[in-house]
């Protein structure tokens, strides 16, 4: 049932599904339906990416994971692994450059699809993020880096943990203003 995105849908079109004009148990039902549709779409997109990557691969790539709470800096794959990859798909028909923010415990080097190192910025997560994620994650840092994606295509970036001693000095300045 999840072989095409037309079948795997995570869309609720009644205005109640968007606006909050429904009873709470209906809201809960919408949330469950959207979650199921989203999970199916993620599985399908993960399969498609795996197939595309396999064209040049000698071994089957691992299953792609999507981090639903990335907006509050929660992503177990990036927090718990010394090495991981970030694959970004661009649905727009022109090249796009944007900035990715991922939660991490320590510093990482990021290698772009052309094999060159990418500029990164390692910083503490904000107090607002700590409050918002509650018990979902505890990564103390965020890693920011720019990515460039081809039209209607994807790029893969590789993250490698940098050991504490060999880690470059912080390139981030903090400045705190105290009220007068």
């Amino acid at each position, binding site marked *: 049932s999840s072989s095409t995105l037309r079948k795997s849908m995570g869309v609720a079109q009644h205005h109640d599904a968007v606006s909050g004009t*429904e009873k709470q148990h209906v809201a809960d039902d919408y949330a469950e339906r959207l979650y199921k549709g989203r999970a199916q779409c993620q599985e399908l997109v993960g399969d498609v*990416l795996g197939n595309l990557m396999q064209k040049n691969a000698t071994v089957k790539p691992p299953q792609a994971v999507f981090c639903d709470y990335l907006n509050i800096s929660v992503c177990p794959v990036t927090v718990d692994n010394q090495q991981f990859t*970030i694959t970004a*798909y661009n649905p*727009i028909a022109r090249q796009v450059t944007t900035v990715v923010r991922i939660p991490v415990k320590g510093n990482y080097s990021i290698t772009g699809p052309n094999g060159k190192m990418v500029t990164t*910025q390692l910083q503490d997560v*904000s107090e*607002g993020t700590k409050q*918002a994620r509650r018990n979902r994650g505890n990564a103390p840092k965020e890693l920011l880096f720019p990515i460039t994606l081809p039209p209607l295509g994807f790029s893969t970036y590789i993250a490698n943990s940098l050991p504490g001693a060999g880690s470059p000095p912080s390139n981030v300045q903090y400045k705190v203003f105290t*009220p007068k």
Partner: protein
Amino acid sequence: ADETVENQFLSLTFDGSTGLLKSMTDKKSGRSMSVRQSFYWYTSSVGTEQDSQKSGAYIFRPAKQTPQDLFNGTSVGLKVVKGPVAVEVRQQFQPWLSQVIRLYNAKEFAEFEWTVGPIPIRDHLGKEIITRFDTDLKTNRTFYTDANGRQILERIRDHRADWQYSNTEPVSGNYYPINSRAFIKDPKMQLTVMTDRSQGGSSVQDGSLEIMIHRRTLADDNRGVGEPLNETGQFGDGLIIRGKHCVLLTSVNKAAVAHRILGEQLYMAPSLSFTKGVQDWA
């Protein structure tokens, strides 16, 4: 001293005492605009003797027409983080309300990421939280919102093109849907706010643009839901909302190009996936 952060396109100045945004400069045109950005709340109406209509899931009806400032009057505890990829300005308005303003390297917009909630209700008052940009633009009662992310429609305060408007609700009567963007402008400059979700907003005063970002009401509005809009969430104390507004300050003749391109990028943002380990296939 005031603190200024900038990239190639924008310069933002924050009041060194309060930590609030004070001005924005479009570096291409060299034009500056005074702008105070803060958060406010309207008390949800529970009806009056004259009109029993309550604020609820369908209806936004504030009890008073002037919102209360969520800035505590002293400081938002400004913290600035500067790095090679982005500059962040972190503000804490309330224990349950914070904001990070970001300027990315070589990006034309300023990103305002707000985290709101759980909205406190111990005072038994429903609350409707807005973000508001107060500028010195001479907007002459006019502002603009989009219709389903496509056509931009001109809105004139206390006015309807099709019928004689009776101004019984000065604030909510001027609220319009914002699906992707809203803007205000004068003959030279335009302030455009791109939303990451459908919201409601208005320009209640000239030069001002407000957008509702979260609400929690304690009464049913009697339009069929039968429940107040009071979702308590997984932890039982109310929902925490995080969202973004991408703000453009450009000359009027360059504004449409900027917000059309950015709008497409926000609506069709890249999707990220992760795999652990790095193997030959990579």
